[in-house]
């Protein structure tokens, strides 16, 4: 459903992405790993047209998204959980969720679905989201994205700044979400092991290029990746 074809993005004279090609099918879970500054966040922003791209193309269901506004893309069923959660701090939990459901007429049922998924949000529904913990805000950001019943859920470093126990919880939720529905997932992570374990296929981005790609399970056992990202010496 998503094809990224030879995509190039530059911020002024700084190249962020140089000819990246990535594809993602319906009901597929793809992860993108790589070091800081490799262009992972830029890639997700480009898919939402939140940064201008200079070369290549991005297609959703075979149609180029060139010239569409971020909200148009959201309405195509693409939900983006941005880096740093970006909840609407002065609004309550429930208001955040309702904004997430703006794209379609959300019935009360959708709100209940999200509350069933994240019971903690139900308990905090009248709270202003700025007062919540990082983990709770991450749940809210994911819940807000799910309100629109997306076909593709894109997550940018959902584990960032969370305690290890919460990281596990967040990954658990994402895996459960993927299993239980027709949802496709595009996950960006610096936590390589967790990302590879959760996803089916993976791409390694390095300096704006795809360095390695393939089956996530195979990559988990790939000596180069272990050496570069998992802190295991190849000859250990």
């Amino acid at each position, binding site marked *: 459903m998503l094809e990224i074809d030879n995509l190039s993005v530059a911020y002024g004279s700084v190249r962020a992405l140089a000819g990246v090609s990535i594809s993602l099918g319906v009901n597929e879970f793809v992860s993108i790993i790589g070091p800081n500054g490799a262009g992972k966040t830029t890639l997700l922003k480009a898919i*939402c047209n939140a940064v201008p791209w200079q070369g290549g193309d991005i297609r959703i269901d075979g149609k180029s998204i060139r010239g569409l506004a971020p909200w148009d893309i959201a309405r195509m069923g693409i939900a983006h959980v*941005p880096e740093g959660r970006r909840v609407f701090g002065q609004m309550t939990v429930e208001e955040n969720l309702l904004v997430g459901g703006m794209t379609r007429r959300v019935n009360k049922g959708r709100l209940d679905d999200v509350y069933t998924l994240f019971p903690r949000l139900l308990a905090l529904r009248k709270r202003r989201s700025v007062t919540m913990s990082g983990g709770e805000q991450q749940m809210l950001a994911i819940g807000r994205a799910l309100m629109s019943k997306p076909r593709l859920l894109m997550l940018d470093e959902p584990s960032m700044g969370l305690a290890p126990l919460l990281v596990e919880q967040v990954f658990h939720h994402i895996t459960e979400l993927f299993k239980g529905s027709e949802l496709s997932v595009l996950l960006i992570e610096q936590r390589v092991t967790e990302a590879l374990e959760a996803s089916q296929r993976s791409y390694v981005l390095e300096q704006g290029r795809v360095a390695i790609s393939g089956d996530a399970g195979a990559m988990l056992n790939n000596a180069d990746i272990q050496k570069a990202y998992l802190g295991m010496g190849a000859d250990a």
Partner: protein
Amino acid sequence: MYALQLFITGLQQGGIIALLSMGLALMFGVLRVVNFAQADFMMLGMFSVILIYNLLHINFVGAAVLLAVPAFFVGLTVYHFIIRQVGKAKLTSSPAHAQLLATLGLSLVIQNGAEMIWGATPLTLGSSQELSVWHVGALVIDQPRTIAFVIALGIAGVMLAVLRGTALGRAVRAAASDPEAAGYVGVNVRLAYAGTFAVAIAISVVVGGILVSYYPVTPVTGNDFILLMFTAVIMGGLGNVIGAMVGGLMLGLVQSMSQLFVPLELNSAVVFGLFLAMMLIRPSGIFGEVTRL
């Protein structure tokens, strides 16, 4: 009894300043645009109501309300052709600086344009409403001021209800809070910005329309208000609509009640003295400098 009389007058004047300031705060809270021309749109509203009244002889309240629709479209036009373009043009390090200068320029153009059309002599709404008062015991309650106050309160109430309790209001608040994240969840941020700008302009114009029932208008009448409006917005906490309302009401009351202690001519000194004291004690304003709509 004199104090009560001053309190009522202050409240009435404060209601007008409050609503004007709320429009300014709404615009700043959502678009981060500091609009120096906000009170000039009020002045245009005042002249327009005189014009409509002389042509159609309809009640000034009706004329003011009627004006809201064209004012909204003027707001959309100004946003689309000036504010947005100036913001996109990367003229200054931050688009907000260029937009601020643009509104300052717009203010000069509107004021001088109005002078070309209507001249510099003060005009009043030639209606008998000006003189009508209610007597409640020993109190004298000015009718147009009361009507203006009630309308101002009503508009403020509707505005807050829409912001708090509707999907539209939530979308606007989301766009104010984090435009990028709002776009990701499907909020049309460009439309939210344009609509908010236009509503803020329409509010200013309508306030002008009801103010002219007792306040004479010249092309620079906006200058009597813009400083008070900014003072109210900053006192309430930048970008905070309810704060601006409280700030505006307070300024009206202080202006009026200060007559108990100092001559009328000094009421501005009291207002800005209070403002300075406030900035020393609590620089972030009554409700703090967070955007809360």
